């Protein structure tokens, strides 16, 4: 009897906790689903798994700041970021530790370009990304500089919807999904090579390389 009750309880969990699938409304109709012969996933194929749910950011008051070990801190509005830097397109697959993945056409600007304007100091080792919801993650500065890493403002030719990280999401290719921080508000340069972000401090790998496991280190 106890076993049956437990099974019923667990089996009905999705009914009262919600399904977790994001609702992108009519966006699926306008997004591109094929780019240069590569089949793209739909925006609605993502699962909503952020730490505090989708964030609504007011683009009027939004600022993207570059801080920490830089020659001069910068602060840009959304439009300034889009108008000031060259845009790039990339098809990159996001692999989530939960077991799902999505292949998306990303439009964005290079993090390297943003950092170049601020002027990283020589002792900067790590780039720490901060999000509007308090989430943080970090990546080595060499990874950012050597790999054409984007912060994306569009996916599949659609401006990022709030649940997908508007205004900017990091496209941390070859890294597990928890490095793909959404709702970026600040890019901080640090000398703290041991810095661990939100999930990294909760037991997930700090390097987060796709060809390695996602636990430990």
């Amino acid at each position, binding site marked *: 009897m106890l076993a049956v009750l437990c099974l019923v309880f*667990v*089996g009905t969990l*999705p009914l009262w*906790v919600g399904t*977790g699938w994001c609702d992108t409304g009519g966006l699926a109709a306008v997004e591109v689903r094929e780019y240069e012969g590569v089949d793209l996933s739909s925006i609605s194929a993502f699962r909503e*798994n952020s730490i505090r749910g989708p964030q609504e950011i007011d683009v009027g008051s939004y600022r993207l700041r570059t801080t920490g070990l830089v020659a001069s801190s910068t602060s840009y509005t959304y439009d300034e970021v889009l108008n000031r830097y060259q845009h790039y397109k990339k098809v990159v697959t996001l692999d989530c530790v939960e077991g799902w993945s999505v292949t998306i056409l990303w439009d964005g600007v290079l993090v390297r370009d943003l950092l170049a304007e601020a002027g990283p100091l020589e002792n900067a080792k790590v780039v720490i990304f901060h999000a509007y919801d308090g989430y943080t993650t970090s990546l080595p500065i060499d990874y950012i500089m050597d790999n054409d890493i984007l912060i994306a403002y569009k996916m599949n030719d659609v401006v990022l919807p709030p649940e997908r990280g508007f205004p900017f999401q990091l496209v941390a290719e070859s890294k597990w999904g928890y490095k793909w921080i959404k709702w970026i508000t600040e890019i901080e340069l640090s000398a703290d090579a041991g810095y661990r972000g939100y*999930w990294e401090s*909760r037991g997930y790998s700090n390097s987060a390389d796709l060809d390695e496991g996602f636990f430990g280190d």
Partner: protein
Amino acid sequence: MSRQQLARRIIHWLLTVAVIVYLLTGFGITQYRIVEPLTFGLLTKNLAHRIHINLEIPFIILVVLHIWLLPLLRRFKLKH
């Protein structure tokens, strides 16, 4: 209770527990914002993930035993 019945009962209970833990830890991964406070912070996403992954093989073994234990025991009994 015969040994055969006892073995079956143990397998059934272990499988029941494994199914419940497997489902709970699955939700602990995908619905961690709900499951973590429901378990008073005991089942974190990371812990759920580790348990879920490490439970795969035992779960398969238990399912196989659950299906094949009785026929195997019967065949063993007939031969001896």
